[in-house]
Protein backbone atom coordinates (compact mmCIF):
# COMPACT_ATOMS: atom_id res chain seq x y z
CA UNK A 1 0.00 0.00 0.00
CA UNK A 2 2.88 2.36 0.72
CA UNK A 3 4.08 4.66 -2.04
CA UNK A 4 7.22 6.78 -2.33
CA UNK A 5 6.48 10.18 -3.80
CA UNK A 6 7.27 12.63 -1.03
CA UNK A 7 9.25 10.05 0.87
CA UNK A 8 11.32 8.90 -2.14
CA UNK A 9 14.58 10.08 -0.58
CA UNK A 10 13.73 9.47 3.09
CA UNK A 11 15.67 6.20 3.37
CA UNK A 12 18.79 7.44 1.62
CA UNK A 13 21.73 8.13 3.89
CA UNK A 14 22.46 11.85 4.32
CA UNK A 15 19.52 12.76 2.08
CA UNK A 16 19.36 16.12 3.83
CA UNK A 17 22.70 17.10 2.31
CA UNK A 18 22.55 19.00 -0.97
CA UNK A 19 25.17 16.83 -2.64
CA UNK A 20 23.20 13.65 -1.93
CA UNK A 21 19.79 15.17 -2.65
CA UNK A 22 21.01 16.51 -6.00
CA UNK A 23 22.20 13.06 -7.05
CA UNK A 24 18.64 11.94 -6.53
CA UNK A 25 17.04 14.73 -8.50
CA UNK A 26 16.74 17.69 -6.13
CA UNK A 27 16.29 21.05 -7.90
CA UNK A 28 15.75 19.14 -11.16
CA UNK A 29 12.51 20.98 -11.89
CA UNK A 30 13.94 24.48 -11.90
CA UNK A 31 14.83 24.66 -15.62
CA UNK A 32 11.32 23.55 -16.51
CA UNK A 33 9.86 25.93 -13.92
CA UNK A 34 11.56 29.07 -15.17
CA UNK A 35 10.55 28.25 -18.76
CA UNK A 36 6.91 28.23 -17.62
CA UNK A 37 4.63 31.20 -17.17
CA UNK A 38 3.79 31.71 -13.46
CA UNK A 39 0.08 31.54 -14.31
CA UNK A 40 0.65 28.12 -15.88
CA UNK A 41 2.37 26.92 -12.71
CA UNK A 42 -0.70 27.92 -10.69
CA UNK A 43 -2.94 26.20 -13.26
CA UNK A 44 -0.87 23.01 -13.05
CA UNK A 45 -1.14 22.97 -9.24
CA UNK A 46 -4.89 23.62 -9.46
CA UNK A 47 -5.26 20.74 -11.92
CA UNK A 48 -3.26 18.44 -9.66
CA UNK A 49 -6.01 18.68 -7.06
CA UNK A 50 -3.42 19.25 -4.30
CA UNK A 51 -5.21 20.27 -1.12
CA UNK A 52 -3.67 21.99 1.89
CA UNK A 53 -1.97 19.35 3.99
CA UNK A 54 -2.01 21.29 7.23
CA UNK A 55 -5.46 20.05 8.13
CA UNK A 56 -8.00 22.26 6.40
CA UNK A 57 -7.68 20.61 2.99
CA UNK A 58 -8.28 23.77 0.99
CA UNK A 59 -7.15 23.47 -2.67
CA UNK A 60 -3.64 24.95 -2.82
CA UNK A 61 -3.83 26.40 -6.32
CA UNK A 62 -7.18 28.06 -5.59
CA UNK A 63 -5.72 29.68 -2.47
CA UNK A 64 -2.91 31.17 -4.55
CA UNK A 65 -5.52 32.58 -6.92
CA UNK A 66 -6.93 34.78 -4.13
CA UNK A 67 -3.92 37.09 -4.28
CA UNK A 68 -4.95 40.51 -5.57
CA UNK A 69 -3.58 41.39 -9.00
CA UNK A 70 -1.32 44.35 -9.65
CA UNK A 71 -1.09 45.50 -6.07
CA UNK A 72 1.96 47.63 -5.42
CA UNK A 73 3.07 45.68 -2.37
CA UNK A 74 5.42 42.77 -1.79
CA UNK A 75 3.88 39.30 -1.64
CA UNK A 76 5.01 36.93 1.10
CA UNK A 77 5.04 33.16 1.44
CA UNK A 78 4.86 31.78 4.96
CA UNK A 79 5.53 28.07 5.26
CA UNK A 80 3.70 26.59 8.22
CA UNK A 81 6.01 24.21 9.98
CA UNK A 82 4.46 24.66 13.39
CA UNK A 83 3.13 21.08 13.39
CA UNK A 84 1.76 21.09 16.90
CA UNK A 85 -1.62 19.40 16.59
CA UNK A 86 -1.29 16.38 18.90
CA UNK A 87 -0.70 13.17 16.91
CA UNK A 88 0.82 15.05 13.97
CA UNK A 89 4.45 14.34 13.20
CA UNK A 90 4.72 14.10 9.42
CA UNK A 91 6.30 17.40 8.39
CA UNK A 92 9.24 16.70 10.65
CA UNK A 93 10.30 13.88 8.29
CA UNK A 94 10.43 16.32 5.38
CA UNK A 95 12.43 18.84 7.43
CA UNK A 96 15.15 16.37 8.38
CA UNK A 97 15.15 13.82 5.56
CA UNK A 98 14.47 15.95 2.51
CA UNK A 99 14.66 19.66 3.33
CA UNK A 100 15.82 20.42 -0.21
CA UNK A 101 12.53 19.07 -1.58
CA UNK A 102 10.78 21.68 0.56
CA UNK A 103 13.17 24.46 -0.50
CA UNK A 104 12.58 23.50 -4.14
CA UNK A 105 8.85 23.66 -3.41
CA UNK A 106 9.28 27.13 -1.93
CA UNK A 107 11.06 28.26 -5.11
CA UNK A 108 8.19 26.85 -7.20
CA UNK A 109 5.52 28.50 -5.08
CA UNK A 110 7.29 31.87 -4.88
CA UNK A 111 7.86 31.92 -8.65
CA UNK A 112 4.18 31.11 -9.20
CA UNK A 113 2.83 33.79 -6.86
CA UNK A 114 5.54 36.41 -7.48
CA UNK A 115 7.03 36.37 -4.00
CA UNK A 116 10.65 37.13 -3.17
CA UNK A 117 10.57 36.67 0.59
CA UNK A 118 9.58 33.49 2.34
CA UNK A 119 9.48 32.71 6.03
CA UNK A 120 9.44 29.19 7.40
CA UNK A 121 7.74 29.20 10.79
CA UNK A 122 9.11 26.20 12.67
CA UNK A 123 7.91 25.18 16.12
CA UNK A 124 10.40 25.94 18.87
CA UNK A 125 10.62 22.36 20.10
CA UNK A 126 12.13 21.18 16.81
CA UNK A 127 15.71 21.90 17.78
CA UNK A 128 17.78 19.38 15.83
CA UNK A 129 15.28 19.69 12.98
CA UNK A 130 15.85 23.45 12.88
CA UNK A 131 19.60 22.89 12.68
CA UNK A 132 19.30 20.51 9.73
CA UNK A 133 16.86 22.81 7.95
CA UNK A 134 19.07 25.86 8.44
CA UNK A 135 22.10 23.96 7.14
CA UNK A 136 20.12 22.95 4.06
CA UNK A 137 19.08 26.57 3.46
CA UNK A 138 22.70 27.69 3.87
CA UNK A 139 23.79 25.07 1.34
CA UNK A 140 21.07 26.21 -1.08
CA UNK A 141 22.31 29.80 -0.78
CA UNK A 142 25.90 28.74 -1.39
CA UNK A 143 24.93 26.73 -4.45
CA UNK A 144 22.92 29.64 -5.84
CA UNK A 145 19.48 28.10 -5.48
CA UNK A 146 18.51 30.93 -3.16
CA UNK A 147 19.59 34.56 -3.11
CA UNK A 148 19.82 37.27 -5.74
CA UNK A 149 19.57 34.97 -8.77
CA UNK A 150 17.84 31.67 -8.19
CA UNK A 151 19.65 29.04 -10.28
CA UNK A 152 21.07 31.79 -12.50
CA UNK A 153 17.66 33.24 -13.36
CA UNK A 154 16.60 36.81 -12.86
CA UNK A 155 14.61 35.97 -9.76
CA UNK A 156 15.54 36.90 -6.20
CA UNK A 157 14.38 34.74 -3.33
CA UNK A 158 15.27 34.93 0.35
CA UNK A 159 14.19 32.22 2.77
CA UNK A 160 14.31 32.91 6.50
CA UNK A 161 13.51 30.52 9.32
CA UNK A 162 11.44 32.03 12.12
CA UNK A 163 11.48 29.95 15.26
CA UNK A 164 8.36 29.70 17.41
CA UNK A 165 8.59 29.21 21.15
CA UNK A 166 5.96 26.79 22.35
CA UNK A 167 2.56 28.15 21.34
CA UNK A 168 0.22 25.68 19.61
CA UNK A 169 -2.02 28.51 18.45
CA UNK A 170 0.73 29.76 16.12
CA UNK A 171 -0.19 26.95 13.76
CA UNK A 172 -3.32 29.01 13.06
CA UNK A 173 -2.28 31.02 10.04
CA UNK A 174 -3.00 34.53 11.26
CA UNK A 175 -1.48 33.82 14.69
CA UNK A 176 1.58 32.62 12.81
CA UNK A 177 1.76 35.95 10.96
CA UNK A 178 1.35 37.90 14.21
CA UNK A 179 4.19 35.88 15.68
CA UNK A 180 6.52 36.67 12.77
CA UNK A 181 5.61 40.34 13.20
CA UNK A 182 6.90 40.17 16.77
CA UNK A 183 3.62 39.92 18.60
CA UNK A 184 1.81 37.44 20.80
CA UNK A 185 0.34 34.65 18.68
CA UNK A 186 -3.27 35.82 18.84
CA UNK A 187 -5.33 35.07 15.73
CA UNK A 188 -6.85 37.88 13.69
CA UNK A 189 -10.48 38.32 12.76
CA UNK A 190 -11.15 37.33 9.16
CA UNK A 191 -11.87 38.82 6.67
CA UNK A 192 -9.64 40.28 5.46
CA UNK A 193 -7.92 37.01 4.64
CA UNK A 194 -4.13 36.81 4.55
CA UNK A 195 -4.07 36.55 0.75
CA UNK A 196 -5.22 40.18 0.76
CA UNK A 197 -3.96 41.54 4.12
CA UNK A 198 -1.36 39.21 5.57
CA UNK A 199 2.18 39.56 6.83
CA UNK A 200 3.14 43.22 7.39
CA UNK A 201 -0.28 44.07 5.91
CA UNK A 202 0.84 42.67 2.56
CA UNK A 203 -0.68 39.84 0.48
CA UNK A 204 0.50 36.54 1.95
CA UNK A 205 0.13 32.88 1.14
CA UNK A 206 0.46 30.42 4.00
CA UNK A 207 1.03 26.78 3.06
CA UNK A 208 1.89 23.71 5.09
CA UNK A 209 5.31 22.03 4.70
CA UNK A 210 3.86 18.94 3.05
CA UNK A 211 1.81 21.00 0.57
CA UNK A 212 4.94 22.88 -0.45
CA UNK A 213 7.01 19.69 -0.61
CA UNK A 214 4.46 18.17 -2.99
CA UNK A 215 5.14 20.82 -5.63
CA UNK A 216 8.38 19.49 -7.19
CA UNK A 217 6.67 16.20 -8.11
CA UNK A 218 3.67 18.04 -9.60
CA UNK A 219 5.82 20.34 -11.71
CA UNK A 220 8.23 17.61 -12.79
CA UNK A 221 5.72 14.87 -13.63
CA UNK A 222 2.61 16.96 -14.21
CA UNK A 223 -0.81 17.24 -12.60
CA UNK A 224 -2.06 14.00 -14.17
CA UNK A 225 0.78 11.98 -12.67
CA UNK A 226 -0.14 13.34 -9.24
CA UNK A 227 -3.81 12.58 -9.83
CA UNK A 228 -2.90 8.98 -10.61
CA UNK A 229 -2.78 8.62 -6.83
CA UNK A 230 -5.74 9.09 -4.55
CA UNK A 231 -9.36 9.72 -5.46
CA UNK A 232 -11.15 12.18 -7.73
CA UNK A 233 -11.64 14.80 -5.04
CA UNK A 234 -8.80 13.79 -2.72
CA UNK A 235 -5.89 13.54 -5.12
CA UNK A 236 -2.34 12.47 -4.43
CA UNK A 237 -0.51 10.96 -1.52
CA UNK A 238 -0.28 11.90 2.13
CA UNK A 239 2.22 11.32 4.89
CA UNK A 240 0.15 9.62 7.57
CA UNK A 241 1.34 9.53 11.15
CA UNK A 242 -0.04 6.50 12.93
CA UNK A 243 0.35 6.39 16.69
CA UNK A 244 -1.22 5.12 19.88
CA UNK A 245 -2.10 1.50 20.40
CA UNK A 246 -0.80 -0.16 17.23
CA UNK A 247 1.98 -2.69 16.80
CA UNK A 248 3.92 -0.60 14.28
CA UNK A 249 3.38 3.11 14.86
CA UNK A 250 5.15 5.47 12.50
CA UNK A 251 4.99 7.66 9.42
CA UNK A 252 3.70 6.05 6.23
CA UNK A 253 3.16 7.62 2.82
CA UNK A 254 -0.08 6.35 1.30
CA UNK A 255 -2.36 7.36 -1.53
CA UNK A 256 -5.55 8.98 -0.30
CA UNK A 257 -8.72 6.91 -0.33
CA UNK A 258 -7.58 3.64 1.29
CA UNK A 259 -9.85 1.91 3.81
CA UNK A 260 -8.77 2.94 7.32
CA UNK A 261 -8.89 -0.53 8.84
CA UNK A 262 -6.87 -2.09 6.02
CA UNK A 263 -4.19 0.50 6.64
CA UNK A 264 -4.22 -0.04 10.38
CA UNK A 265 -4.06 -3.81 10.06
CA UNK A 266 -1.76 -4.26 7.08
CA UNK A 267 0.54 -1.25 7.37
CA UNK A 268 0.56 -0.49 11.09
CA UNK A 269 0.37 -4.08 12.32
CA UNK A 270 -3.09 -3.84 13.89
CA UNK A 271 -4.14 -3.07 17.44
CA UNK A 272 -1.25 -3.90 19.76
CA UNK A 273 -1.03 -6.78 22.19
CA UNK A 274 -3.90 -8.54 20.42
CA UNK A 275 -6.37 -6.22 22.10
CA UNK A 276 -9.75 -5.05 20.84
CA UNK A 277 -10.29 -1.69 19.18
CA UNK A 278 -12.19 0.94 21.12
CA UNK A 279 -11.94 3.88 18.74
CA UNK A 280 -9.84 5.76 16.21
CA UNK A 281 -8.97 9.46 16.15
CA UNK A 282 -8.63 9.98 12.40
CA UNK A 283 -6.70 13.21 11.84
CA UNK A 284 -5.16 14.77 14.91
CA UNK A 285 -6.59 15.32 18.38
CA UNK A 286 -9.12 17.92 17.22
CA UNK A 287 -11.00 15.52 14.94
CA UNK A 288 -14.10 13.74 16.29
CA UNK A 289 -13.46 10.12 17.29
CA UNK A 290 -14.68 7.15 15.25
CA UNK A 291 -16.21 4.05 16.82
CA UNK A 292 -14.91 0.65 15.62
CA UNK A 293 -18.03 0.29 13.42
CA UNK A 294 -17.35 3.65 11.80
CA UNK A 295 -13.66 2.87 11.47
CA UNK A 296 -14.58 -0.18 9.40
CA UNK A 297 -16.48 1.82 6.80
CA UNK A 298 -14.38 4.99 6.49
CA UNK A 299 -11.70 5.59 3.88
CA UNK A 300 -8.73 7.92 4.23
CA UNK A 301 -9.93 10.88 2.21
CA UNK A 302 -11.61 14.22 2.89
CA UNK A 303 -15.05 13.16 1.58
CA UNK A 304 -15.41 9.89 3.47
CA UNK A 305 -14.30 11.54 6.70
CA UNK A 306 -16.93 14.28 6.23
CA UNK A 307 -19.59 11.62 5.57
CA UNK A 308 -18.62 10.07 8.90
CA UNK A 309 -19.04 13.48 10.57
CA UNK A 310 -15.37 13.86 11.31
CA UNK A 311 -12.42 15.37 9.50
CA UNK A 312 -9.42 14.17 7.59
CA UNK A 313 -7.37 16.77 9.43
CA UNK A 314 -3.61 16.37 9.44
CA UNK A 315 -3.46 12.63 8.77
CA UNK A 316 -2.45 11.94 12.37
CA UNK A 317 -4.28 8.71 13.16
CA UNK A 318 -4.49 7.58 16.79
CA UNK A 319 -5.64 4.09 17.73
CA UNK A 320 -7.37 3.57 21.06
CA UNK A 321 -7.45 0.03 22.44
CA UNK A 322 -10.06 -1.44 24.76
CA UNK A 323 -8.18 -0.40 27.91
CA UNK A 324 -8.47 3.35 27.23
CA UNK A 325 -10.41 5.26 29.87
CA UNK A 326 -12.29 7.76 27.69
CA UNK A 327 -12.97 10.16 30.57
CA UNK A 328 -9.27 10.42 31.39
CA UNK A 329 -8.41 10.74 27.71
CA UNK A 330 -10.85 13.65 27.43
CA UNK A 331 -9.24 15.23 30.49
CA UNK A 332 -5.87 14.99 28.75
CA UNK A 333 -7.27 16.67 25.63
CA UNK A 334 -9.12 19.49 27.39
CA UNK A 335 -6.02 20.20 29.48
CA UNK A 336 -4.04 20.59 26.26
CA UNK A 337 -6.43 23.03 24.59
CA UNK A 338 -6.98 24.98 27.81
CA UNK A 339 -3.22 25.36 28.19
CA UNK A 340 -2.84 26.46 24.58
CA UNK A 341 -5.68 28.99 24.49
CA UNK A 342 -4.16 32.35 23.58
CA UNK A 343 -6.51 34.07 26.03
CA UNK A 344 -7.96 36.50 23.54
CA UNK A 345 -11.60 35.29 23.49
CA UNK A 346 -13.56 34.79 26.69
CA UNK A 347 -15.50 31.65 25.62
CA UNK A 348 -12.21 29.85 24.91
CA UNK A 349 -10.10 31.23 27.75
CA UNK A 350 -12.73 30.72 30.45
CA UNK A 351 -14.88 28.03 28.86
CA UNK A 352 -12.13 25.46 28.32
CA UNK A 353 -11.02 25.98 31.92
CA UNK A 354 -14.56 25.37 33.09
CA UNK A 355 -14.78 22.20 31.01
CA UNK A 356 -11.51 21.04 32.55
CA UNK A 357 -12.85 21.58 36.07
CA UNK A 358 -15.97 19.56 35.26
CA UNK A 359 -14.08 16.63 33.76
CA UNK A 360 -11.78 16.58 36.78
CA UNK A 361 -14.88 16.42 38.96
CA UNK A 362 -15.82 13.20 37.17
CA UNK A 363 -12.38 11.74 37.76
CA UNK A 364 -12.46 12.76 41.44
CA UNK A 365 -15.76 10.87 41.77
CA UNK A 366 -17.84 14.04 42.18
CA UNK A 367 -19.51 14.02 38.76
CA UNK A 368 -23.27 14.49 38.59
CA UNK A 369 -25.72 13.33 35.94
CA UNK A 370 -26.40 16.87 34.74
CA UNK A 371 -22.67 17.52 34.29
CA UNK A 372 -22.81 15.60 31.02
CA UNK A 373 -25.50 17.95 29.76
CA UNK A 374 -23.57 20.91 31.13
CA UNK A 375 -20.48 19.85 29.17
CA UNK A 376 -22.52 19.50 25.98
CA UNK A 377 -24.10 22.89 26.58
CA UNK A 378 -20.68 24.43 27.13
CA UNK A 379 -19.47 22.93 23.85
CA UNK A 380 -22.38 24.64 22.06
CA UNK A 381 -21.73 27.95 23.78
CA UNK A 382 -17.99 27.97 23.05
CA UNK A 383 -17.85 26.64 19.51
CA UNK A 384 -17.80 29.20 16.69
CA UNK A 385 -18.05 32.05 19.17
CA UNK A 386 -14.35 32.83 19.07
CA UNK A 387 -11.95 34.48 16.63
CA UNK A 388 -10.26 31.22 15.63
CA UNK A 389 -11.08 27.51 15.71
CA UNK A 390 -8.85 26.53 18.66
CA UNK A 391 -11.88 26.28 20.93
CA UNK A 392 -13.77 24.21 18.34
CA UNK A 393 -10.71 21.97 18.06
CA UNK A 394 -11.50 21.07 21.67
CA UNK A 395 -15.29 21.06 21.70
CA UNK A 396 -15.79 19.03 18.50
CA UNK A 397 -13.89 15.97 19.70
CA UNK A 398 -15.19 16.33 23.29
CA UNK A 399 -18.76 16.30 22.00
CA UNK A 400 -18.00 13.15 19.99
CA UNK A 401 -16.68 11.35 23.08
CA UNK A 402 -19.69 12.45 25.12
CA UNK A 403 -22.09 11.19 22.46
CA UNK A 404 -20.33 7.97 21.47
CA UNK A 405 -18.97 6.93 24.87
CA UNK A 406 -21.59 8.48 27.16
CA UNK A 407 -21.79 5.28 29.20
CA UNK A 408 -18.18 5.74 30.33
CA UNK A 409 -18.97 9.16 31.75
CA UNK A 410 -22.10 7.74 33.37
CA UNK A 411 -20.17 4.90 34.95
CA UNK A 412 -17.95 7.47 36.68
CA UNK A 413 -21.09 9.05 38.13
CA UNK A 414 -22.62 5.74 39.12
CA UNK A 415 -19.48 4.41 40.74
CA UNK A 416 -19.14 7.57 42.81
CA UNK A 417 -22.77 7.30 43.86
CA UNK A 418 -22.60 3.60 44.67
CA UNK A 419 -20.97 4.11 48.01
CA UNK A 420 -21.84 7.61 49.27
CA UNK A 421 -20.35 6.91 52.68
CA UNK A 422 -16.99 6.10 51.26
CA UNK A 423 -17.00 8.99 48.82
CA UNK A 424 -17.85 11.35 51.70
CA UNK A 425 -15.01 9.90 53.69
CA UNK A 426 -12.64 10.58 50.77
Amino acid at each position, binding site marked *: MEVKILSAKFDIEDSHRLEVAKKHGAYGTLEKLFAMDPADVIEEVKNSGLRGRGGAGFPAGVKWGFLPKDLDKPIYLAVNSDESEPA*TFKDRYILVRDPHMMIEGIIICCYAIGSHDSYIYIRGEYTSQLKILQEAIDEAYEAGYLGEQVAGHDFRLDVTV*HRGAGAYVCGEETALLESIEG*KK*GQPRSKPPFPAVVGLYDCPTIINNVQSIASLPFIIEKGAEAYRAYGTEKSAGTHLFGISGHVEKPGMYELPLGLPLMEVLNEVAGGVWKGRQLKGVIPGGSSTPVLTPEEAHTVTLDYESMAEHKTMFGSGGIVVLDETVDIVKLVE*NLIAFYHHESCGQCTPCREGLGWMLKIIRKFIAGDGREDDIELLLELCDNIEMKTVCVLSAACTMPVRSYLEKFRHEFESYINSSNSDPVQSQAE
Partner: protein
Amino acid sequence: MSDRSQLISSGQPFTFDSARDAEFERLIKRYPIRESMIMPALWLAQEQEGWLSTEAIAYVAERVGTYPAKVFELATFYTMYHLKPVGKYHLCVCRTLSCYLREKQEIVDYLAAELGLRPGEVSEDGMFSLEEVECLGHCGTAPVIQVNGEFHEEMNVEKLKTLLAGLD
Protein backbone atom coordinates in the same frame (compact mmCIF):
# COMPACT_ATOMS: atom_id res chain seq x y z
CA MET B 1 8.25 26.89 33.84
CA SER B 2 5.44 27.39 36.33
CA ASP B 3 5.49 31.05 37.42
CA ARG B 4 5.69 33.23 34.34
CA SER B 5 4.61 36.52 35.88
CA GLN B 6 7.91 37.83 37.26
CA LEU B 7 11.29 38.76 35.92
CA ILE B 8 14.39 37.99 37.98
CA SER B 9 17.58 40.00 37.96
CA SER B 10 20.80 38.10 37.36
CA GLY B 11 22.77 40.91 38.97
CA GLN B 12 25.03 40.93 35.91
CA PRO B 13 24.97 43.19 32.86
CA PHE B 14 23.95 41.43 29.64
CA THR B 15 25.27 41.82 26.11
CA PHE B 16 25.42 39.40 23.18
CA ASP B 17 28.72 37.65 22.65
CA SER B 18 30.33 38.25 19.28
CA ALA B 19 28.82 35.18 17.55
CA ARG B 20 25.31 36.09 18.65
CA ASP B 21 25.87 39.71 17.82
CA ALA B 22 26.75 38.67 14.27
CA GLU B 23 23.69 36.40 14.05
CA PHE B 24 21.48 39.27 15.24
CA GLU B 25 22.88 41.55 12.54
CA ARG B 26 22.44 38.84 9.87
CA LEU B 27 18.82 38.22 10.78
CA ILE B 28 17.66 41.80 11.20
CA LYS B 29 18.26 42.42 7.49
CA ARG B 30 15.68 39.76 6.70
CA TYR B 31 12.74 41.55 8.27
CA PRO B 32 11.09 44.78 7.13
CA ILE B 33 10.27 45.79 10.73
CA ARG B 34 12.53 45.61 13.76
CA GLU B 35 9.88 44.11 16.09
CA SER B 36 10.17 40.84 14.15
CA MET B 37 13.57 40.46 15.79
CA ILE B 38 12.18 40.23 19.35
CA MET B 39 11.64 36.46 19.24
CA PRO B 40 14.92 35.63 17.46
CA ALA B 41 16.79 37.91 19.89
CA LEU B 42 15.13 36.27 22.89
CA TRP B 43 16.28 32.90 21.56
CA LEU B 44 19.83 34.17 21.14
CA ALA B 45 19.82 35.56 24.68
CA GLN B 46 18.43 32.34 26.12
CA GLU B 47 20.97 30.22 24.22
CA GLN B 48 23.74 32.35 25.63
CA GLU B 49 22.63 32.48 29.28
CA GLY B 50 20.26 29.56 29.63
CA TRP B 51 17.41 31.81 30.72
CA LEU B 52 16.08 35.36 30.36
CA SER B 53 16.93 37.78 33.15
CA THR B 54 15.63 41.33 33.63
CA GLU B 55 18.92 42.49 32.13
CA ALA B 56 18.58 40.25 29.06
CA ILE B 57 15.01 41.46 28.45
CA ALA B 58 16.14 45.09 28.71
CA TYR B 59 19.07 44.41 26.37
CA VAL B 60 16.84 42.77 23.75
CA ALA B 61 14.45 45.74 23.93
CA GLU B 62 17.32 48.16 23.42
CA ARG B 63 18.82 46.20 20.51
CA VAL B 64 15.49 45.84 18.77
CA GLY B 65 14.46 49.41 19.56
CA THR B 66 11.30 48.76 21.50
CA TYR B 67 9.97 48.89 25.06
CA PRO B 68 11.06 46.29 27.64
CA ALA B 69 7.35 45.72 28.39
CA LYS B 70 6.79 44.58 24.79
CA VAL B 71 9.66 42.10 25.05
CA PHE B 72 8.42 40.92 28.46
CA GLU B 73 4.96 40.38 26.93
CA LEU B 74 6.36 37.95 24.35
CA ALA B 75 8.69 36.26 26.84
CA THR B 76 5.69 35.44 29.04
CA PHE B 77 3.33 34.44 26.21
CA TYR B 78 5.70 31.92 24.62
CA THR B 79 6.27 29.11 27.10
CA MET B 80 9.68 27.97 25.87
CA TYR B 81 11.33 31.13 27.14
CA HIS B 82 12.67 30.51 30.62
CA LEU B 83 12.12 33.39 33.00
CA LYS B 84 14.26 31.78 35.68
CA PRO B 85 17.27 29.50 35.53
CA VAL B 86 16.61 25.87 34.62
CA GLY B 87 18.82 22.93 35.47
CA LYS B 88 22.05 22.12 33.65
CA TYR B 89 19.94 19.29 32.26
CA HIS B 90 16.43 20.43 31.47
CA LEU B 91 14.15 17.42 31.03
CA CYS B 92 10.83 17.83 29.26
CA VAL B 93 8.37 14.95 29.20
CA CYS B 94 5.57 15.05 26.62
CA ARG B 95 2.20 14.69 28.39
CA THR B 96 -0.19 14.81 25.42
CA LEU B 97 -2.37 12.27 23.60
CA SER B 98 -0.08 9.63 22.06
CA CYS B 99 2.53 9.83 24.81
CA TYR B 100 -0.31 9.68 27.32
CA LEU B 101 -1.62 6.52 25.65
CA ARG B 102 1.90 5.05 25.64
CA GLU B 103 2.30 5.46 29.41
CA LYS B 104 4.15 8.76 29.75
CA GLN B 105 3.09 8.77 33.40
CA GLU B 106 5.61 6.00 34.14
CA ILE B 107 8.31 8.25 32.71
CA VAL B 108 7.21 11.26 34.76
CA ASP B 109 6.91 9.21 37.96
CA TYR B 110 10.31 7.59 37.51
CA LEU B 111 12.08 10.88 36.81
CA ALA B 112 10.27 12.64 39.65
CA ALA B 113 11.30 9.92 42.13
CA GLU B 114 14.84 9.55 40.81
CA LEU B 115 15.56 13.28 40.73
CA GLY B 116 13.46 14.17 43.76
CA LEU B 117 11.61 16.78 41.72
CA ARG B 118 8.04 17.57 40.89
CA PRO B 119 7.36 18.85 37.35
CA GLY B 120 8.18 22.56 37.33
CA GLU B 121 11.02 22.29 39.85
CA VAL B 122 14.78 22.70 39.64
CA SER B 123 17.08 20.60 41.81
CA GLU B 124 18.89 22.42 44.59
CA ASP B 125 22.31 21.79 43.05
CA GLY B 126 21.03 23.26 39.77
CA MET B 127 21.78 20.05 37.87
CA PHE B 128 18.28 19.02 36.84
CA SER B 129 14.93 20.54 36.08
CA LEU B 130 11.81 18.63 35.15
CA GLU B 131 8.88 19.84 33.11
CA GLU B 132 5.78 18.28 31.60
CA VAL B 133 5.16 19.81 28.19
CA GLU B 134 2.50 19.59 25.49
CA CYS B 135 2.82 17.49 22.32
CA LEU B 136 6.40 17.35 21.04
CA GLY B 137 5.52 16.01 17.58
CA HIS B 138 7.11 12.58 18.00
CA CYS B 139 3.87 10.64 18.48
CA GLY B 140 4.98 7.65 16.39
CA THR B 141 7.84 6.96 18.81
CA ALA B 142 5.98 7.74 22.03
CA PRO B 143 6.68 8.27 24.82
CA VAL B 144 9.32 10.93 24.22
CA ILE B 145 11.37 13.26 26.33
CA GLN B 146 13.72 16.11 25.50
CA VAL B 147 16.96 16.74 27.34
CA ASN B 148 18.22 20.24 26.59
CA GLY B 149 16.25 20.13 23.36
CA GLU B 150 17.56 16.75 22.24
CA PHE B 151 14.90 14.12 21.61
CA HIS B 152 14.89 10.65 23.19
CA GLU B 153 12.22 8.41 21.72
CA GLU B 154 10.40 5.21 22.70
CA MET B 155 11.39 5.78 26.30
CA ASN B 156 11.01 3.33 29.13
CA VAL B 157 12.46 3.02 32.62
CA GLU B 158 15.45 0.98 31.42
CA LYS B 159 16.37 3.59 28.82
CA LEU B 160 15.89 6.37 31.38
CA LYS B 161 18.34 4.66 33.73
CA THR B 162 20.98 4.58 31.00
CA LEU B 163 20.22 8.15 30.01
CA LEU B 164 20.47 9.52 33.56
CA ALA B 165 23.69 7.61 34.17
CA GLY B 166 25.22 9.46 31.23
CA LEU B 167 24.36 12.91 32.58
CA ASP B 168 26.85 14.38 35.01
